């Protein structure tokens, strides 16, 4: 029969454990929230992180030492747990992206705490009499599975969250109906975000324009953005619409009924998700179908898939733009010239010719610009204002962004991940008047069976333009080697194990007058801030 003092010890251990678990849940919750409460991405981040949690090792050590000095160990662990909780940075206040204690976050944390407590109490009860130190053993398990506990809590709350989401959606629909902004929908296999940013930049000089930063393109994301940012003064609203499956754009169009639409390109990206190009054309075509009878449809005629949507559409005002298309275009892109300060080009419309310059680089981006220009002018923007506006565009960070550093031109294109983007970067660097050209890249990925062949071709194309290529990491090394062998210049390919190694090599090698492309390398989303320990004041 346990004595009073042993009950006291059990209570203290339970309280200390609960206190620390509460803190740890908060620490992980920050990342679950950052990942939009998506399990896969969250778990990919947490990986085996819970096994490096000092609380996990504290419990293991405690459980191991427990048989020798049960009371002393329990008391020591209680104190250590409280100290660990105190030593953890508060994710609500520290770090660059803080944890926002929304009601959803509170709900997830509370449910997760209940689950963690149930596991702990259950395990400890089962282990009594079976093993020494049942509470500490239970703690070991709980700290190891905390990320999964959060996932479980989130799963339990799913039906409720879905209910709330529907309420939010209804609210957003009402808001759009009340405020009646002129909605412009943008879809396409690529170029959506860039077109949206350019169009919003031009339109803002014509009327207050709402467009989400980044690439919010889901029902949930757009709903949230409307609720947070749409205000009575807004004249235009530019909505990026992602097609994840047949019907997803149609649903988005119910939320934000478009008066105008821009289709940037329809290609065979996400082919496996849709099954056929026809299915993709149908999915993207939902945007054109949602337009009112007098609606405006602007289409990139260079993309055969997009052109098919235009051809299938009846009774709307259709404008075509492009560069290489043989169609009778409303806006034709011509005379594209790249320099280190940006791109000069000509836009030929039915009535006029506009000479333009922009600080942005890359043929796909300039083509997006032509689309945005066409749409903006069609909804009433003065072409002279549009031409002036595109001179003040700023490159999106890491999307063909030129940074000059002591005479070296760095072309940062880390966010690019497709082969079209890769080629666009090569084209830009080929046109620049520089001494030597370098490229550092891990190649392109997620191409399934074609990955080797695509990277091999890209390597050959890189060899034709660049003096030296650095292939980073193992993923596409063989493909690059083969490509360079095809080109007969293996000696101009350098293989490096990591991004850091690539930078070391480049820093030692490049000189004034050189240009370097940093292609397709996703920088860490996460800051190196402490999860378990407070970091020492920087500086």
């Amino acid at each position, binding site marked *: 029969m346990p004595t009073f003092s042993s009950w006291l010890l059990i209570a203290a251990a339970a309280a200390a454990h609960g206190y620390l678990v509460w803190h740890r849940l908060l620490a992980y919750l920050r990342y679950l929230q950052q990942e939009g409460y998506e399990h896969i991405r969250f778990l990919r981040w947490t990986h085996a992180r819970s096994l490096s949690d000092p609380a996990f090792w504290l419990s293991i050590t405690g459980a191991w030492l427990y048989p020798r000095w049960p009371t002393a160990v329990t008391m020591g662990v209680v104190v250590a747990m409280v100290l660990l909780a105190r030593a953890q940075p508060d994710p609500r206040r520290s770090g660059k992206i*803080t944890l926002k204690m929304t009601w959803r976050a509170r709900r997830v944390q509370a449910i997760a705490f209940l689950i963690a407590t149930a596991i702990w109490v259950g395990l400890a009860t089962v282990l009594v009499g079976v093993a020494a130190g049942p509470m500490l053993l239970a703690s070991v398990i709980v700290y190891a599975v905390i990320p999964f506990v959060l996932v479980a809590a989130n799963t339990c709350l799913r039906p409720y969250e879905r209910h709330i989401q529907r309420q939010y959606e209804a609210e957003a629909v009402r808001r759009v109906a009340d405020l009646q902004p002129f909605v412009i929908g943008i879809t396409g296999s690529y170029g959506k975000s860039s077109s949206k940013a350019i169009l919003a930049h031009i339109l803002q000089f014509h*009327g207050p324009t709402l467009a989400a930063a980044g690439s919010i393109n889901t029902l949930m994301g757009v709903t949230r953005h409307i609720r947070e940012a749409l205000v009575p003064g807004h004249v235009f609203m530019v909505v990026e619409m992602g097609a994840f499956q047949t019907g997803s754009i149609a649903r988005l169009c119910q939320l934000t009924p478009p008066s105008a639409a821009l289709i940037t390109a329809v290609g065979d990206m996400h082919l496996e998700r849709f099954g056929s190009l026809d299915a993709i054309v149908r999915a993207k075509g939902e945007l054109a179908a949602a337009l009112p009878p007098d609606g405006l449809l602007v289409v990139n005629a260079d993309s055969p898939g997009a052109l098919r949507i235009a051809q299938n559409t009846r009774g709307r005002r259709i404008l075509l733009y492009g560069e290489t298309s043989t169609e009778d275009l409303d806006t034709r892109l011509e005379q594209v010239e790249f320099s280190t300060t940006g791109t000069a080009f000509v836009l030929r419309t039915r009535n006029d010719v506009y000479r333009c310059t922009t600080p942005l680089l890359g043929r796909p981006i300039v083509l997006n610009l032509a689309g945005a220009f066409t749409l903006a002018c069609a909804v009433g923007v*003065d072409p*002279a204002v549009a*031409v*002036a506006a595109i001179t*003040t565009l700023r490159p999106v960070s890491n999307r063909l962004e030129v940074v000059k550093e002591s005479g070296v031109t760095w072309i940062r294109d880390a966010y690019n991940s497709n082969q079209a983007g890769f080629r666009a970067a090569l084209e830009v660097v080929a046109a620049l008047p520089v001494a030597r050209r370098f490229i550092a890249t891990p190649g392109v990925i997620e191409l399934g069976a074609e990955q080797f062949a695509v990277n091999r071709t890209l390597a050959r194309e890189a060899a034709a333009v660049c003096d030296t290529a650095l292939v980073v990491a193992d993923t596409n090394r063989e493909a690059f080697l083969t490509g360079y062998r095809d080109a007969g210049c293996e000696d101009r390919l350098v293989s490096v194990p990591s991004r850091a190694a690539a930078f070391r090599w480049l820093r030692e090698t490049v000189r004034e007058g050189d240009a370097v492309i940093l292609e397709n390398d996703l920088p860490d989303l996460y*800051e190196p801030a402490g999860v378990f320990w407070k970091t020492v004041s920087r*500086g």
Partner: protein
Amino acid sequence: MSPVKRTVAVLFGGRSLEHDVSVVSGLQILHAIDPGAYSPMPVYIDHDGRWWIGDELWHEACFKGGGPDRSGLTEVNLSTGFGRSDLMSVDERPRLVAHRRHVDVFVPVLHGTFGEDGCIQGLLELSGCAYVGCGVTASALGMNKRLTKVLAAQAGVPVLPGVSCARSVLDRDRGWLERLSQEVDDAFGWPVIVKPCNLGSSAGVSVATSSEELASGVMKVFEYDLEALIEPFIRHRVEVNVAVAGLEDPVASVTEMPVTLQESPLTFGEKYKRQGRKSVGSTAGMAGALRVLDPQDLPADMRADAQRYAISVFSTLGCEGISRIDFLIDADKNDLYFNEINTLPGSMAFYLWSAAPHYWTITELLSRLILRAERMQAIRHGLRRRPTADLSLLG
């Protein structure tokens, strides 16, 4: 028994493009306040406009990266009760006793929007706090380059001609770009300098040699401001700055010539980065190699004119504290023009007081300004604000 030291709160950071400059300036001022006479206290305003206090804020290092770690700081609000001048904790966690810090004098070291334009001064005024520097009217006027020019010209100070273009032209008819270009042509011709009318820094400033570049420059301004100001660009220009301190009578400092590139306007990056990172609290770093104090190659009468005009602008606008008045010299014609006034100059332009006739250290100067702020506040407090019997309608 020694008297209780009065708390002097230095406000820095803020919701403006010049947030970082303000942090550097603010820390310099904070470290320069006489700790023997006052109890200085940092108050950091972050990018979202939230106010924070805490000891960590004394160190420049904590502002590196993503800004100071909020977990060691306390968020505060200025109490709205008139004349209280208390910073109240707005901590979400329940506390038995509300955290409250009384502040005797505020020293706003906030540059640009919301800090130099009368906004923060309005808040301090509403709360009845004593504060260093210009009041609401002078701050707001000083921020508007077009209005300052009008007032300076009225006071007989030479100014460059200018054409202004409000963002509302975008809502009106087409063809305004051509008309603006024509107006510039008629008024002074090319090249021109295009700048935001209401911004303290050099952000959004560009030079245009053609109507296309003018259009681009005006668009750039409209991303920052509701009004663009277009002036002739002086090719061979020399900048001359003078600081004025509003003590019993306004006093002008010596002139300085910041060394800049002659061909291009001072851009934001140039303006602040070229000076190099200054060590906090050191007075030597500021008077670095990139400026010439009391330039002897400048004709004495021009220096005297600059000082005279500076006081004139300072008085016309009704400034307080320390303002820096910037002039331009057209080197081809030897003409001096008033360019702009900074009612809250970087580092309070204290380096300008290190040469004859005023050898004031920053500490000395701050003590004088604090005394002046307290005196001004006492005067304002003494003004009649309650309805007198004849104005009372409610009995």
